[in-house]
């Protein structure tokens, strides 16, 4: 009984802190401690969200953003993975490429926009490029690290059992690097949404980054805060997805099976 209850409780405990924060915030809003014009209470934010939902705009924006996010993630994550694998496996290539990648990664998206417009125009490609570029690095860095840290004893074993290069990769390198790769994916799933706020300043007219920045521009604090909360929720969603992936793909790993 008590155990079952505990189980239930612990399933919700991930939500405890956010919920408490929201309640405190609402209370502070009503008490007048937080100026509603700058940080409107959650209830007002909900109202704004409801209006946008009703008009169908929010759903549309989410759909547009989700498309950009997922496509960008697929492109950037895929490339990051490939680069991570290639550099993790070949020290020659990693000497050539790693530094360059670390340099590129350090260029702020905001500063890149003029160049992006030059290269891709103001259509969808530029936005995808930015998302992809943002997503690339966490996946790359963690894949590279994961592969470098694969137990060399197991690699030797794979070699002397006559596994082909592809088999060594599939059966040893990849599963060995997977915990680390998933950390990268988890991080990237967050970045994927985050980049949109910059990407959707490029001549966009829909998307959650767009409405958030637009709300910022026109001081619709309730919509702005809704945007913030939406981002947080998407972060939580990404996190949940990553956790499920971890639990599924790392079934063999004791550290990932508890709680």
């Amino acid at each position, binding site marked *: 009984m008590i155990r079952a209850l505990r189980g239930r409780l612990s399933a919700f405990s991930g939500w405890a802190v956010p919920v408490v924060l929201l309640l405190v915030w609402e209370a502070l809003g009503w008490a007048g401690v937080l100026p509603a014009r700058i940080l409107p209470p959650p209830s007002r934010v909900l109202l704004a969200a409801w209006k946008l939902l009703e008009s169908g705009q929010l759903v549309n924006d989410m759909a547009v953003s989700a498309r950009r996010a997922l496509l960008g993630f697929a492109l950037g994550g895929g490339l990051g993975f490939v680069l991570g694998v290639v550099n993790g496996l070949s020290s020659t290539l990693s000497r050539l490429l790693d530094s360059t990648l670390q340099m590129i990664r350090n260029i702020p998206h905001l500063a890149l926009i003029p160049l992006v417009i030059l290269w891709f125009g103001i259509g969808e490609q530029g936005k995808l490029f930015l998302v992809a570029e943002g997503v690339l690095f966490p996946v790359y860095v963690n894949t590279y690290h994961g592969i470098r840290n694969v137990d060399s004893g*197991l690699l*030797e074993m794979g*070699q*002397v059992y006559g*596994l082909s290069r592809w088999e060594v990769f599939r*059966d*040893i390198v990849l*599963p060995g690097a997977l915990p680390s790769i998933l950390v990268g994916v988890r991080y990237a799933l967050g970045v994927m949404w985050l980049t949109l706020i910059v990407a959707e300043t490029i001549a966009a007219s829909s998307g959650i980054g767009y409405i958030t920045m637009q709300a910022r521009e026109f001081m619709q604090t309730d919509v702005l805060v809704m945007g913030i909360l939406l981002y947080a929720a998407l972060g939580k969603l990404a996190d949940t997805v990553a956790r499920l992936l971890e639990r599924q793909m*790392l079934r063999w790993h004791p550290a990932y099976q508890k709680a």
Partner: protein
Amino acid sequence: MSTVDYGAWIRVQGLRKRFGRNEVLKGLDLEVEPGQFVAIVGRSGCGKSTLLRLLSGLEAPDEGWIEINGRPLSGRNPAARVMFQDARLLPWKRVLDNVALGRRDAPLEEARAMLRHVGLAGRERDWPAQLSGGQKQRVALARALLSHPAMLLLDEPLGALDALTRIEMQGLVESLWWRGRFTAIMVTHDVEEAVALADRVVLLEHGRVALDEWVDLDRPRKRGDQRFGAIKERLLSRVMQGGAVDQPAGSEDSLPVEKVAVSLGSS
């Protein structure tokens, strides 16, 4: 890949291997005929595992050369399979898949049968982390035996097993070798085991072959047999006379251990 008809022919000459200032192999010569079963004994740290790593091509010699079937070895040795001193199971593959690793092409039934042979029927779907030390070792043994190589290198394959299981596994190794006729090189610390299984027992000492005893007994060998006992005794006393590789545990140490005399020999 089907069972190899005939094992690999190995020639090693003037093999040297250094780790930093520590020269482990100092010009080792060895020739192993195809299908021969060689046991290697020697003190801890004398270079047995290093020799196996060199033969499998995982390590490159500093000097000297290795010939496999008449061709000089450079890079990995595709004819060799190694059972390492540590089990090296893939933690993310179930026991059965670990066993089948060497033989992607073979039906899973063979792997299942091999698991049964090493006494682990029913554990097919377990993760390696759920096995005991000896069970892990047996999974690694099953994997090595299933791979049907021309040349099988076994690094203390039965060290973590109890006496009874050990004898069963010796029987298994011997029978599979007998059928497959691959060249087998096995590192072991158990002289009796060496005599029971091997055509030759090679003693490594000071980075060289110090003794190369041909065991001229018919198979199946009987441990109760007098000649078996004599060979074993002779080998044991030679091994026990031991060249120190590491510093021996002497009584002249600063820690005042009240030394308890240990006498050796067998009944």
